[in-house]
C-alpha cells in the first residue's frame, strides 16, 4: 500500500491492515512528530492534517488513506524555516514538555483554515457574520479544546495562534 506524507509517497510492504495511521507514521515511517497520548481520540496529541483537515490519526486505519495527502508536524516547517504557527509557539512559550505540541500545532493550522472558511464554532454568536471576528480568545480556546495539554500551556498558545494568524 502507499501513503503520501508531507509530499513524499511511501510504499509500505506487509503492513498489518489493523495498523492505524498514527502507528504507520510512527512505527513504519519513523515520523514520530505525531504523538500517541491516549490511542482513543481523546487527547489530540496525534493530530495530523488529512487533505488539509485536522484529524486524530489514532482513529483512522492507514490502509483507508492511500489517496490522501497527509501532513504531519514535520511537513509544516523545520528548524531553519518554521511554520508561522510553530514560530508563534516558540515566541510565546506555548509548550512545556512538548508532547502535545505537534498535535496542538497541526490542530491550530487546521483550525485557522476552518476560520478562514467562515465555519462557526460552539461559541460563535452570529452566523453568518462575514465581518465578525472568528479569532477572539474565546473562539480560539473553544476551537482548540480537542487538544489536551497537562502542563497547562494553554494561556501561551492563544497569543501564539493569534500571532500566526496576523492578529
Amino acid at each position: 500500500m502507499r501513503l503520501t506524507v508531507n509530499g513524499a509517497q511511501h510504499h509500505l510492504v506487509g503492513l498489518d491492515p489493523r495498523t492505524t495511521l498514527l502507528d504507520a507514521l510512527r512505527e513504519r515511517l519513523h515520523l514520530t512528530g505525531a504523538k500517541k497520548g491516549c490511542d482513543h481520540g481523546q487527547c489530540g496529541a496525534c493530530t495530523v492534517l488529512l487533505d488539509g483537515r485536522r484529524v486524530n490519526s489514532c482513529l483512522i486505519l492507514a490502509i483507508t488513506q492511500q489517496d490522501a495527502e497527509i501532513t504531519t508536524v514535520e511537513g509544516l516547517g523545520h528548524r531553519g524555516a518554521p511554520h508561522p504557527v510553530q514560530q508563534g509557539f516558540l515566541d510565546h512559550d506555548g509548550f512545556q514538555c512538548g508532547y502535545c505540541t505537534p498535535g496542538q500545532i497541526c490542530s491550530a493550522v487546521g483550525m485557522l483554515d476552518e476560520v478562514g472558511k467562515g465555519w462557526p464554532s460552539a461559541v460563535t454568536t452570529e452566523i453568518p457574520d462575514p465581518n465578525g471576528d472568528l479569532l477572539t480568545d474565546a473562539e480560539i480556546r473553544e476551537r482548540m479544546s480537542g487538544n489536551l495539554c497537562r502542563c497547562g500551556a494553554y494561556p501561551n498558545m492563544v497569543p501564539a495562534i493569534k500571532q500566526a494568524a496576523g492578529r
Partner: protein
Amino acid sequence: MTSMVTRAVGAPVARLEGPAKVSGAARYAAEYPQDHLAYGWIVPSPVARGRLDAVLIDPAEEDVLAVLWYGNAPELAKSDDPELAVLQSDEIRYRGQPLALVIATSLEAARRAAQAVQLEIAEEDHDVELRADHPDRYTPETVVPDVPAESSTGDVEAALTSAPVTIDVTYETPPLHNSPMEPHATIARWDDQDLILYDSNQHPSGIADTVGAIFGLPAGRVHVVTEHVGGGFGSKGTARPNAVLAALGARVTGRPVEVVLPRQAMFSIVGHRAPTLQRIRVGATEDGILTAIDHQTCTQSSRLLEFVESASVVTRDVYPVPNLRTGHSVVRLDVPTPRWMRAPGEAPGMVGLECALDELAVELGLDPVELRIRNSPANPRYVECLRSGAARFGWSERDPRPGQRLEGEWRLGTGMAGATYPASAMPSTARVRALGAGEYEVAIAAADLGTGARTILAQIAADELGVPIDKVHIRIGDSTLPQASVAGGSSGSASWGWAVTGACRELRAADGSSDEATFDTTELVQQQKENRHASGAHFAEVRVSTVTGEIRVSRLFGMYDGGRILNPRTARSQFLGGMIMGMGMALHEESVLDPAQGTWVNHDLAEYHIPTHADVEWIDAAWLDQPEDDLNPMGSKGIGEIGIVGSPAAILNAVWHATGIRIRTLPARLDKILTATP
C-alpha cells in the same frame, strides 16, 4: 570587575529545545528506531484480589514471540518497590496489575494476542472502599516524605474548648491521576551484558540503579536515555513496571522490546494521588489570632506498599499556632498503589487548611487576607505576597457578603488562599569541560520534563563561566553523565544548579591548569538551611450559573516568592501550569473506584477530566523576585509545585462567595451546586 557578558540568569531565555519540540524532531522514549524491534503488551488483572493459576495462550495469533507470566518469567532480584517485582508471584493485589506480557513482532499482533490470552484465576473477595470508620484503619509511623505521622504541641483540646471562635469541618479530596500526556514508555535493549533503556522518567540516575539491581547488574552496566520527557508530575519519579517488563522481554526474546503503557493502564500501574478525608478544627481569638488547630487526615494505600499522602503535614509550618496537633491514619485496601502527584501532601492539605481558614474568616467577620497577615508575624515574604497579590487582583473592592453579584444567569464571587512549598536541594554532581574557542560542555544526568531545566542550567553555567549562553553546550537526560537527583519535590534547579555552579567555579579557579572540573554537592546540601519554603497567594474570581450550576473561573492570579527567579519566561509557564492543574483539582478531576469491580470507572482522558483550553480564561502570575542567598548559590527556591498548592482552595472559596454554598467534597461538580442549599 565589569563583565562584557549580560547576565543570563534572570533573563527570559527561550527553551533551548524549543525548535526541536515544535518541529517534531525532539525524541521521546518510544521514538528511537531499533533493528528487529518487538512490542510488549501487558495483560492486566481483571480482578482486584485473587491468585493466578494459569495463563492459556491462543495459538492462532501469529507473530507472537513470547508470553511471559510468573510461571515462566526469569527470576528477578528483590527490590524496595514491590510493584517492580513483575511476573514474580501468583498473588493478585489490585485490578490492573500486570499478570502477563505478550511480546510480538508488531504492535497490532501484541495487542490482539494480549486480548486473546485466557487467565485462570481464583478470585477472592476484595475491599476498595475507604471509610473513616474502617476497622482496619491505623496510624502509620511515617508519612510522605518520611516524616512522623503525628505531631503535637501545647494542649489542643483545652485551647479549642476555651477559644471564643471555633471551626470544625471535614474536607474530602478524591483520588487523582497525574496523567502526563506522554504515557510511561520504555524501549529496552541488551548489548551483550549491558542494558540500554530509552525510558520516560524523572530520574535517569535512579532508574539505572533500581533496574540494575533488579537484574543483578553492577553500576554502570545500565544506560538510561531520557532526552525528552512528556511530563511526569511525580508519576515518573522512580522506575515503573514498564521499564522492568521491557528489559525482561528483551532478555527473553533477544530483541529490543518496546513497552508503552496504554492510557487505561496508567490509571492502575503508575500511581495516583490517594483520596483524603480531612477533619480540621480551628480555634481563634475574636481578633483572629489562631490559638489551636487540629488537622487529621485519613487516607488509603495498597496491599503492596504503605504510601501515606501527608495532607496534615503542611499545617505544621504555615502559621505559628501554640496548640497544634496533626495526624494521619491509613487503610490498606485492594487498590492500586498511590504515589507522588504534584505537591503530595501540600496540594490536598492546603484545601483543608485554607478552606477552613476561609470559613473562620467568615465566622470572625474578618477579611481572609487580613486573617492570614495577622497570623504570619515571622513570614514577611508571605505577607508581601498576600498584600501585593490582593492589590494587583483588586481585592479591596470586594463585598465580603456572599451571593451579592448577579450578572444575567451568573453569580460572581472572589476567593483567595495562601500557598507554600518546601525549598530544598538534593545531592548531585556536575561536570564542566572547556572545549576550546571559549566553548564549554556542561554534563549532568538531570531530566527536563518541560520545566525548562536544560535552559536554566545553561543560564547558570554561562554566568559562572562568564560567557554568552550560546557558548554553553548542555548534556542532560542520560544516566552515564554525572549523577543527578530526581526532577521532583521542586528541587531540580536548586540541586543541579548548585552542582553546575560548583563545577564552573572549580574550573575557573583552576585558571587554565585543567580543562575539566567535576563537583559533587553531597556535603554542601547536608548543611543546607532547613525548614525554608517558597510561599505565595492565589486569588480567584468565578461565575456560577444559576441555571446549570456550571462554574467558570473568570480570573486566576498567583503571587509568589520563589527566591530568585532564574528564567521569568519558563517560570511563568510553570506557575500557570500548576494553577491550571489546581483548577482541575477544584472543579473537574476525580477518579472513581467501582466498589463491585475494584476498578477505576473513568480510566481514560474522555472521562477523567483535566482542564482544556476552554476552561482557562484570564490567568496570570507575578513574583517578588527576591533572592534567598543563604539557601543555595542561585538564591532560588523551587517553583514546580507551588502553583497547585492553594489554588484549588482559592477557587472553592470563590464559589462560596458567589453562591453561599460550601463545597467540602471535591471536585465542585455542577450537580453539587444545584442540589445544595446556601
